[in-house]
């Protein structure tokens, strides 16, 4: 299996001299199976550059798994050029939102409206299919098996585990591990903690022994203190997950938009120093780099 990051930034694209090295596009990850089946995780702005490389392979079959419908994870969909070209087959997977009861097709249709985009949904020439995925129910793409799990975020968010040819990757999408909402002196504290612990075990099991764990690590601990409940993880929460799951490589992604290459690297050096013996490799997700597992 091969992985390539096309977007590593959280919330909003951040082009400019300070993000040249790690990249300023929002979330998009390309995964290729050994048979070259194409799986795309999220359709942030990074998907546009990915699309350029696909033009020479057409017609293509792409399987796009959306973790959640926040803007930074879907805004590249109308710019995924293969959707305009006949004979391409594009299948978009996602969950049903329990608040709106909307399926994943809305992620595209909502953008293709007169006020927001010049082309109508009916004018897309590729064959586009939508599939609703359910937590714990595996989906097959070629020799790959993709299994979603619900991970807490301000909107329904799926983490996806991809198992293929004896290798595995897990991507959290945007994920803030749930904290106890009660104070230790509250009656509800212990019980709520038992729910938190049970969910944690479920999450760790879903990412158990993966070759690559890709986590939302938007914040440092200091930043997180004022950003609890915003729906994002920290570098340390990522390390904690990777340790518990015995992952082999840990990729930090969803870089905070104001984070420059220099500050990312400073944080990274600190992490290496403070975590000398994790038993897994710590890596910053970087646009355009080929990763073989």
């Amino acid at each position, binding site marked *: 299996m091969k992985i390539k990051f096309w977007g590593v930034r959280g919330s909003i694209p951040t082009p400019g001299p300070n993000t040249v090295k790690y990249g300023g596009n929002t979330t998009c990850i390309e995964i290729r199976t050994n048979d070259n089946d194409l799986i795309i995780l999220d359709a942030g702005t990074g998907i546009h550059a990915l699309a350029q490389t696909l033009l020479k392979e057409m017609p293509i079959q792409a399987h796009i798994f959306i973790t959640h419908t926040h803007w930074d994870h879907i805004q590249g969909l109308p710019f995924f050029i293969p959707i305009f070209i006949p004979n391409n087959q594009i299948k978009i997977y996602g969950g*049903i939102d329990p608040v709106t009861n909307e399926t994943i097709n809305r992620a595209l249709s909502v953008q293709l409206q007169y006020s927001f985009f010049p082309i109508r949904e009916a004018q897309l020439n590729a064959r586009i299919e939508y599939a609703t995925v359910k937590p714990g129910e595996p989906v097959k793409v070629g020799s790959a098996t993709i299994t979603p799990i619900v991970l807490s975020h*301000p909107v329904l968010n799926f983490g996806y585990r991809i198992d293929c040819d004896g290798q595995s990757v897990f991507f959290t999408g945007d994920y803030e591990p749930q904290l106890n909402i009660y104070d230790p002196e509250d009656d509800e504290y212990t*019980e709520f903690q038992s729910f938190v612990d049970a969910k944690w075990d479920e999450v760790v099991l879903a990412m158990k022994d993966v070759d690559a764990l890709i986590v939302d690590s938007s914040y440092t601990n200091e930043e997180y203190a004022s950003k609890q409940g915003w729906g994002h993880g920290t570098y340390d929460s990522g390390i904690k997950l990777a340790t518990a799951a015995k992952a082999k490589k840990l990729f930090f992604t969803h870089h905070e938009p104001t984070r420059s290459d220099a500050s990312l690297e400073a944080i990274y050096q600190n992490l290496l120093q403070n975590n000398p013996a994790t038993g897994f490799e710590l890596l910053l997700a970087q646009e355009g780099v080929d990763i073989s597992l």
Partner: protein
Amino acid sequence: MPNSKNEKLIVLVEKMPAFPKSVQQIVQLTSDINASAKDIVRVIECDPIMTVKILKAINSSFYGLPQKITSVQRAVVHIGLNTIKNIALGVAAMGMLSANNKANFNTSNFLLHSLTTAAISKLLAERIGLSSTECSDCFVAGLLHDFGKVVFAEFMPDEFKLALEKSQEQQLPLHQTELEFIGINHSQAGKILAEKWELSDPLIDAIAHHHDIDHNQNVLRDCVFAANQISKHMQFGNGGNPLIEAFPESIVIRFGANLSAMCDDLGDLESIKIEAQSFINV
């Protein structure tokens, strides 16, 4: 009641509004960016309608959860507070349950009955040493046991009014007169809805059988049954049923006491009533 009528009821209940104070508080808390998570959860878990709508959304087979979620707190841990908050806000947008329904059914007294039954049910669960999860499930079962009644008051007020009146005048069990005038009683209606909404089996069973205790073993239902009688005995609120049922043998064995011994043993439950009232009065 014919099946088509059941189907109609299921559709109507989709638009069922919640209780006034919780609607007001949810609107207020969700427009305050600094509102605390526990305050929001507290409002939702004290409103039977909001609770049931969240359990319905989260247990829907669309999500295919391997294990049913029975409490609002677990739902929050599973999917995150914001989604739960927005489901509650969706319920709030349907308006408020009116205090003056055509059935003359007092919804504040009903809510007080439901909330105190919930709290006592949890208390009983703790006394017999159930796990903390089971204790919170007992609260939810107590809160939801009678929600069929508020559905009747809202959508079948004329028939329900007759049932309430006859029950009162002739001192008959309400579930019996409901059967006569509506063709179905509130526990049966609750069961149909709970099944449709794919709630957990013990919860469905507790709602369905809180008036016929001979049914199979279910500790949730036993706690709700006992709490229901204790709440009525203490005259906390009013669910419209004038009769208090004695503890049958299985309940006496389960809790080691009959109704009056149990009430003596529990002592002063006034604090439960006062806390419940704080969620009711607008």
